[in-house]
């Protein structure tokens, strides 16, 4: 690497400042982050989870990986030594910090980092990526914004209030059982700054004055609400447990939950349905309908013994618009360890048979455990479909979370409405008689060419 000052080079059209020398003031961590990290990622972190920026095949020694894991939730406060030119430079806008818990799941986030760190800053400095707040466990946050190695320490900002710092990147990539999980691990900024203030006051040298330079939490001076309840649909997913199998589901009536057949495969089976937001409840139910194994629509319907109070019942969509912004809500990856995750993307394809939508595809990250969860339109908040699967390449064994399939709610809605009103399963049983072209689509086969007609 060349560390010598080179000729002035523009940074995407803007001149870069020279590299400024700095000194380490302190290293700090957020203790609550570690508690939640241990709960979510378990004791077998080294076995199942990896947070290395290095690719799976790269030669990273066990010692190096252990070092990376130990340093995961640590941050550093640096004092930058300025030259006269920098001192005279404009100070830049004041920064504010979003209080812990103020940003709701599903809220848009903007990550600003420098991929590959010191490599080619004139190209990569302050590269932006956006996503949503996918999940929250205390100060441990997850976003589906795609980040790259070197963005560790990058700032994560809210759209509303504009530019409030909500978190810093802890690990841009995480892998579970060798598969890339499309989440970036974050540490909330507010508790980190509290820890920094506390540390600065306890250090023997006169660093206490620096505490005054740490940004304040968003409050009255900003004139903006501290908390936003977020989209209602972010609380719409429920956890469905059937014996040792679990997945996601969505309530379509206070006592009726739709999930996948591969989550609750047997009719009459007892199922436990858990809702985590706004409060944690568990209600028993039984599977009243599950499509046959040969049916392309992987659906089961669960009737509950009690009402699922406070869980929002979504409005079913009637139309689908390719390219529209959508979100998936489900218990993928973490199951019961924390509430449902929200991932964002677009409706990438609406597959139709004879003009009727029979399959939806999205670019949202969908992980194992999300099956049965709802797919929502961000614009209308309406329920678009039920997630059934992501994609695996059987030749390579690779899983693609960002290519996934949902059953359009328009396929299910008439039958669900009929059952809800009359307890008649007739409409649901019709799903088992899906036409061959629908089966062909769900087998990911090419449509059969029309048989050549005899000219005789």
């Amino acid at each position, binding site marked *: 690497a060349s560390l010598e000052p080179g000729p002035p080079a523009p940074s995407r059209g803007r001149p870069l400042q020279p590299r400024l020398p700095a000194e380490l003031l302190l290293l700090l961590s957020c203790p609550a982050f570690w508690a939640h990290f241990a709960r979510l990622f378990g004791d077998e972190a080294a076995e199942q989870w990896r947070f290395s920026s290095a690719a799976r095949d790269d030669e990273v020694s066990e010692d190096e990986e252990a070092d990376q894991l130990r340093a995961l939730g640590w941050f550093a406060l640096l004092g930058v030594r300025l030259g006269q030119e920098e001192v005279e430079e404009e100070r*830049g806008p004041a920064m504010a910090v979003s209080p812990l818990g103020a940003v709701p799941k599903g809220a848009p986030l903007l990550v600003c980092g420098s991929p590959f760190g010191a490599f080619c800053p004139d190209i990569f400095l302050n590269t932006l990526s956006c996503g949503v707040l996918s999940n929250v466990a205390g100060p441990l946050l997850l976003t589906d914004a795609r980040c790259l190695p070197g963005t560790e320490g990058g700032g994560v900002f809210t759209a509303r209030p504009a530019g409030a710092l909500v978190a810093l990147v802890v690990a841009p990539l995480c892998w579970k059982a060798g598969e890339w999980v499309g989440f970036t691990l974050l540490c909330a900024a507010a508790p980190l700054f509290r820890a*920094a203030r506390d540390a600065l006051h306890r250090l023997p040298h006169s660093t206490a004055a620096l505490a005054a*330079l740490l940004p304040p939490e968003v409050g009255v001076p900003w004139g903006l609400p501290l908390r936003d309840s977020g989209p209602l649909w972010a609380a719409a997913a429920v956890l469905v447990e059937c014996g040792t199998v679990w997945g996601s589901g969505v309530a379509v009536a206070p006592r009726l939950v739709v999930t996948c057949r591969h989550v609750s495969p047997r009719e009459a089976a007892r199922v436990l349905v858990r809702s985590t937001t706004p409060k944690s409840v568990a209600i028993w139910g039984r599977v009243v309908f599950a499509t046959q194994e040969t049916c392309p629509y992987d659906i089961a319907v669960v009737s509950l013994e009690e009402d699922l109070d406070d869980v929002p019942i979504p409005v079913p969509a009637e139309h689908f618009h390719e390219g529209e912004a959508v979100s998936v809500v489900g218990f993928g990856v973490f199951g019961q360890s924390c509430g449902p995750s929200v991932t964002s993307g677009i409706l990438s394809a609406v597959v139709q048979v004879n003009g009727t939508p029979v399959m939806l595809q999205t670019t949202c990250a969908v992980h194992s455990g999300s099956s049965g969860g709802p797919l929502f339109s961000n614009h209308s908040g309406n329920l678009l479909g039920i997630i059934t699967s992501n994609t695996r390449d059987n030749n390579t064994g690779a899983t693609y979370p960002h290519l996934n399939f949902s059953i359009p709610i328009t396929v299910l809605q008439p039958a669900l409405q009929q059952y809800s009103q009359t307890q008649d399963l007739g409409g649901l049983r019709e799903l088992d008689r899906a036409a061959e072209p629908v089966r062909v689509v769900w087998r990911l086969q090419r449509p059969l060419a029309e048989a050549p007609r005899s000219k005789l």
Partner: protein
Amino acid sequence: MRRQWGSAMRAAEQAGCMVSASRAGQPEAGPWSCSGVILSRSPGLVLCHGGIFVPFLRAGSEVLTAAGAVFLPGDSCRDDLRLHVQWAPTAAGPGGGAERGRPGLCTPQC
């Protein structure tokens, strides 16, 4: 994107920086680098990830997982630690000092 993010993008880009660490006299051994957030430009105060400091910890990385370790003072790292911060100017200002590329990352044709 710009319509939704407008001022948030400006704030994010104004706050972003890059931090590199190297050993005194051995620049070829690094630098270790990461991203950071500018908390104050004058006086200069930056928060960045702690992972790049692991090779410099006097007591080794085990000190990070020691019971009750919430913070470590700056002198926890060896004296040969050299740090540099690079950020974009708030307004048009003097440029210079950009690093040249180095092997390891390329742009394969797709």
